[in-house]
């Protein structure tokens, strides 16, 4: 009897607690908007119109979703391995650099091949960069939170160095590279918007990561190492190898985020290629509870909030900091959601049992 209802109880509790969290975010944010001297109705309206109100707005939301999704997927792989990779941002920058080099300086390839080459370069460079931190962990037991966090600074400045002294043409004022070759451009998938092929690739990657984690022995090993390193070793899993592989994949996926920005959005390498997508992804992936399919939804939501915030600022003159607060509230209450879920579940289970006995 308990078995039959336990699945329903879990689902109900999940949905209930999610709605509760959203409601709390809505209320708290409304209060903060009023305190800041704005009208909540106007702000919410602006957010929605800015994020979803027109094909163009929707396209803008999607191009923000893309890099967040790529980075989130990378984090799914490393976090589930128990490796707290905080270095997505840096891995993204180096991926962007690698993709730009291939896309600008490697002529003579047909379109699809050129894009694949740029993707491979971005994945490889991002992966090796993250893999280095993995190596420091397996070889010297260096805390990966520290090494990956600090590796961000090195990566970002390294990519700026290459941009400034090697990629930037002499005649250019601002630090930016040449345009990439037309063969390397990711196609626009929705006419009149910025919705480019990279986002589709990110969604495909989400399914690939889902398949890898759920259906392959590598996924099993990664989950095993993440669940209990000692037990994994006891069962004969080569823990260090799995850590290196998961970090490589994690960094590679973050590198693809950089690739998407260069090949799909800017079509050249610029200095600030990412407004902290790599860090936003950390929040996103926790909200998605390390589930790659959930990451698609959460990344879209995050993209929408960021894009809606931009609209508020530009069109309505409402400071974008307000939106930063919304993101923060969103993260905080989503992370608190499991607590509510547990309580709701307990309450429901008690009720089910009672009715069962009667």
């Amino acid at each position, binding site marked *: 009897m308990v078995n039959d209802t336990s699945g329903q109880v879990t689902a109900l509790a999940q949905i209930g607690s999610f709605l509760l969290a959203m409601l709390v975010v809505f209320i708290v944010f409304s209060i903060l908007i009023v305190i800041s001297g704005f009208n909540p109705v106007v702000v919410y309206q602006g957010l929605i119109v800015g994020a979803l109100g027109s094909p163009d707005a929707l396209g803008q939301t999607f191009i923000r979703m893309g890099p967040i999704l790529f980075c989130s997927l990378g984090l799914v792989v490393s976090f589930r391995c128990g490796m707290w990779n905080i270095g997505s941002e840096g891995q993204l920058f180096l991926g962007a650099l690698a993709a730009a080099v291939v896309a600008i300086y490697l002529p003579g390839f047909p379109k699809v091949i050129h894009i694949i080459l740029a993707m491979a370069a971005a994945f490889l460079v991002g992966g090796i960069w993250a893999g280095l931190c993995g190596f420091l962990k397996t070889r010297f037991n260096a805390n990966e939170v520290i090494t990956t966090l600090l590796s961000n600074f090195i990566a970002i400045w390294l990519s700026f160095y290459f941009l400034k002294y090697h990629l930037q043409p002499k005649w250019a004022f601002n630090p930016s590279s040449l345009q990439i070759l037309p063969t390397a451009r990711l196609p626009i998938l929705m006419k009149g918007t910025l919705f480019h092929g990279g986002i589709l690739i990110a969604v495909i990657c989400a399914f690939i990561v889902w398949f890898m984690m759920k259906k*392959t*022995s590598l996924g*099993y090993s990664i989950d095993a190492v993440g*669940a209990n390193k000692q037990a994994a070793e*006891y*069962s*004969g899993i080569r823990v260090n190898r799995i850590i290196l592989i998961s970090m490589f994949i994690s960094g590679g996926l973050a590198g693809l985020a950089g690739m998407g920005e260069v090949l799909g959005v800017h079509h050249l390498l610029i200095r600030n290629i990412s407004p902290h997508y790599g860090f936003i992804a950390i929040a996103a992936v926790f909200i998605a509870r390390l589930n790659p399919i959930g990451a698609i939804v959460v990344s879209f939501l995050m993209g929408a909030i960021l894009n809606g915030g931009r609209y508020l600022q530009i069109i309505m003159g409402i400071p974008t900091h307000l939106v930063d607060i919304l993101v923060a509230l969103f993260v905080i209450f989503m992370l608190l959601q499991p607590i509510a879920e547990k309580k709701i579940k307990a309450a429901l289970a008690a009720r089910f049992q009672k009715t069962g006995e009667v």
Partner: protein
Amino acid sequence: MLPALQAIGIVKTYDSLVANDRIDFEVRKGELHALLGENGAGKSTLLNVLYGVLKPDAGTIYVNGKKARITSTRDAILKYKIGKVSQYSDLVPSFTVGENILYGEIPVKHGLFIDRARINRTVNELNRTTGFKLNATAIVEDLSVGEQQHIELTKLLYQDAEIIFLDEPSSLLAPQEVKKLFGLLKGLIRKGRSIIFVTHKLEEALDCDRITVLRAGRVTLTEERKEVSKDILLKAMFEEKIAISRRTARPEGKKLDSILEVRNLITGSGDRRGNLKKVSFTVNRGEIMGIAGIAGNGQKDILDVLTGFLRPRAGKILLKGTDITASLSPYRLRINNLLAYIPEGRRTIGSFLKLPISENMIMGVGRMSRFYPHGLRDATAIRQFSLSLIEEYGVKAAGPNARASSLSGGNLQKMIVARELSLDTDLLIVAQPTHGLDFKTAEFVHTRLIEEAEKGRGILLISKDLDEVMKLSDRIAIVYEGELRELSPREVNLDTISRLMVGLEKDD
């Protein structure tokens, strides 16, 4: 005179394990009282009940003749003046001796600065009462374990403790330090303190005024020191009549086929009690080789070496005649299906608590090719395999998708036993297989182990439960301070075993 501390009818159970079974215990004022028993006899449980860490299921405690309700360690020290020196230091390593002793009540001058002079004065005054020679300004982490114990004791006296528990205080001390400790303790009891000395070592108990012996959660003896001898204590500590095992009585002269040979194994630098000093033994096909001994005498190193977690300093390990010393690693042992291992830490290394039972059932990389052909998950096979093991071993679980953490201790152990026994290996290593299990489950595990041996596997059993070793093993060895001593069939009797376990040679 009223006893300083008196406990009547203490009962404490975990699931179906009775850790304390109607225990009566009493400490007089100004007495050094030994609480003696082997591992798992219930000493720690009783101590934790009396110290306010555990709530007993039944029983009454009196302090100085008044009924006491000790609900926390804070209660114990503040209300009832009961203090404890734990096995491992509770001191702040980077603080000075004085700061640790006066912890929480550091004197301050001018409302801002620490009054070092007063700290030093207080410590010196305390030194006069205790006879210790503590330097108030020394940093704790620079001091020896023995001195750290002195600090803990002093701290308790500063807190005005009248009843003091020492939990296995000698486990980390050198022999001369133990001697010194006893001298100091005797000084304290002359000043009217009551001290309970928890130990599993006979000689130490014999240095106390009175002795209470626990066995399997019950008091088997409470007597004045002058009234007892080593033999009486040994008898009280271990079961008086251990049934001669069906297995040890098996006919001899069968041709032996060795599966595991360990030769002259040495680990570490030999300075730890648990380091191995030239250990050799053999496990033959179709037999259970039992290693008994009090925990911490080298069992861990034997297990860690054989399972590939620890590189030995010297020695050879032969598996079915092949030297595998150089290639011992969990991965190699598992991928080639050379080893099945039921570990002691069922939650720490034996299972993935956060993952579903099914993922726990397929642990062991040697099985990956079966459940992940070409690297792809065969969900049906995994499910069927898990279900069949759950059914065969009677694991009480909601289903293969339930998390391992939802299982009770006994069912978790059944899961691990099921998983490891289902591996097709010649060698099976088993550590504390029934620790903390209820009688029925323990009996089930025992039966399964005997069946496996009869099927022709070689089993190495390492357990601190002497009854278990005697019941299951074909041959028995005792490990004491890193040395292994195998018993001849004639020596398999309680007297010899219990003497060897506490480090007494046979005719000592």
